[in-house]
């Protein structure tokens, strides 16, 4: 199964409107072959619409979409070499699990024996070997999810689209499925395009991700790049938690009015009389809120002179809080950790 390596999907200034709403607004990007690419954003940001444009359920109002070198304008979904795992799995309720998995092969008139063999293979791949004769309504959420996966993968698409597939699962199951999906993608080697609103998911699974906001992409890059160097205030705030310092606060801290973001976990807390390392920024304040998150503890620090910063500390020791509500603390961190933000974000 050698696929040409290169660009799997390319969007060039694609737009899609629904009435007055610009669901996708002049979006351009490229997805490499064999990548695990995530499209991350809040509801209504356009990520799902982009997915549907790739699948063929929507037609762009402007721009064009190229899949593996071929322009797919006017090509209906059943003729694209793309398969989708739907958010609610969309398993055919009147067919057995095997029937569902074999569906794509049946449509292409693959012989029954061959279909059987390949669907059994697929079910083994997703660890559901013994479930072939069950009906979807007899399966748990996680099992249905895997059937949907098998049903899509059996057709050996060049691109697999996943539309928030883990949304309906509980936390533990979701984390387990994330690992399995990532491993599966590496094993099968095809391009996965994954839509989610969960930034933790996107960060942990993707090779690269695109952050969507109101129909546009604010930033594309590898997870670490996006997290450590957010380009805009939106990305800083949506991917992880961030402090955004602008105007007067920025000037107080750094001496210049350039807006920047600083992650709560990068900020160190010391007692007021102590000094941070040379060249580091520092500012004093009082603890306003303390929230315990198990592995970490978060503090909201009301700064002397106005403004507030969020600080996060790992509970590495015996879980004692660094400072209680109302107590004074000094915050200090290295200047180079400040992420400058684009104008007007």
């Amino acid at each position: 199964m050698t696929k040409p390596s290169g660009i799997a999907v390319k969007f060039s200034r694609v737009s899609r409107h629904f009435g007055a709403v610009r669901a996708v607004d002049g979006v351009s990007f490229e997805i490499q072959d064999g990548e695990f690419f995530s499209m991350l954003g809040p509801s209504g940001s356009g990520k799902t619409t982009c997915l549907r444009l790739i699948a063929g359920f929507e037609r762009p109002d402007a721009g064009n979409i190229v899949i593996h070198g071929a322009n797919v304008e006017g090509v209906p979904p059943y003729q694209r070499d793309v398969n989708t795992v739907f958010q609610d799995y969309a398993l055919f309720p009147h067919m057995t699990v095997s029937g569902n998995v074999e569906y794509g092969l049946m449509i292409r008139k693959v012989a029954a024996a061959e279909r059987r063999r390949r669907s059994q293979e697929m079910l083994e791949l997703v660890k559901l070997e013994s479930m072939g004769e069950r009906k979807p309504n007899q399966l748990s959420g996680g099992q249905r999810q895997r059937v949907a996966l098998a049903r899509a993968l059996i057709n050996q698409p060049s691109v697999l689209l996943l539309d928030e597939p883990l949304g309906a699962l509980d936390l533990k199951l979701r984390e387990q499925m994330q690992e399995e999906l990532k491993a599966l993608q590496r094993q099968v080697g095809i391009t996965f395009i994954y839509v989610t609103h969960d930034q933790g998911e996107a960060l942990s699974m993707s090779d690269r991700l695109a952050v969507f906001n109101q129909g546009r992409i604010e930033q594309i890059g590898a997870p670490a790049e996006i997290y450590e160097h957010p380009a805009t205030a939106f990305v800083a705030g949506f991917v992880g938690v961030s402090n955004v310092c602008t105007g007067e606060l920025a000037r107080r801290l750094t001496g210049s009015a350039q807006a920047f973001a600083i992650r709560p976990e990068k900020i160190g807390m010391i007692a007021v009389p102590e000094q941070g390392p040379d060249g580091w920024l520092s500012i004093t304040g009082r603890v306003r809120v303390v929230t315990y998150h198990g592995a970490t503890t978060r503090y909201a620090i009301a700064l002397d002179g106005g403004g507030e910063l969020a600080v996060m500390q790992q509970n590495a020791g015996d879980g004692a809080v660094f400072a209680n509500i109302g107590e004074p603390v000094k915050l200090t961190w290295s200047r180079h950790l400040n992420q400058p933000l684009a104008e007007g974000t």
Partner: protein
Amino acid sequence: MRSEAAGQARHGTRAGLSLKAGALLGVAFLHVPLAFIILYAFSTEDKSFVFPLPGLTLKWFAVAWDREDIRSALSLSLQVGAVSTVVAMLLGTLAAAAVWRSKFFGREAISLLLILPIALPGIITGISLRSALNLADIPFSSFTIVIGHATFCIVVVYNNVLARFRRSSPALIEASMDLGANGLQTFRYVVLPNIATALLAGGMLAFALSFDEVIVTTFTAGQQTTLPIWMLSELVRPRQRPVTNVVAVFVIAVTFIPILLAFYLTRDTHEVAGSGK
């Protein structure tokens, strides 16, 4: 459907005996007159409705079967029922698919239009059709009967199929297309199996409705006699009362069966067929 435990948990006490008795009696009473009809079909007295019955006999069943007019009325009712049901199934499914898939202007108007033939009194539908057919110079025949029946049967199928559509996910059609099936294949492999039982249930109800209908039929028939028309004329000018009763027994049987089937087909869904006309 709530479990029995939940049902009892909703009310600390069980239903008062009077409410329970009243409800059960009330529903039973709906069927008592039918029981009497069946009883009278065995009566030896053929001139009046005297009670108690003077005697019991089976002879009227044979007499009924020998009557040519009854047999041809029955045959016509069955034919008209079959054809109207098929037309109603076709048009009702199309309308249900349209209303389910798209949000278009006038959706509510469509629902109203579909329900009008059944919501307005039958006589209005009847004479409208009759005078329209007169104006168009179309002669009355079984064909015109079918036109009338199909018209008010559409909504029956429509309701059932739409309810089933509403319970299924639109993503199913997209999933099918995503996996390589075009429109026709999607309909055949995914849509149709999904609505099959609802469609069938709607069809059964439509058949029962058509088989039993008399008002619109009277106006759209020419010289033809369906079973209800036959029965109506017997009611007004009785010839052999017990024979009428035998036919009544038969009508009860023939209409009960499709309804039972429709109920059975949809009983484990939330939308039981026939829950509303």
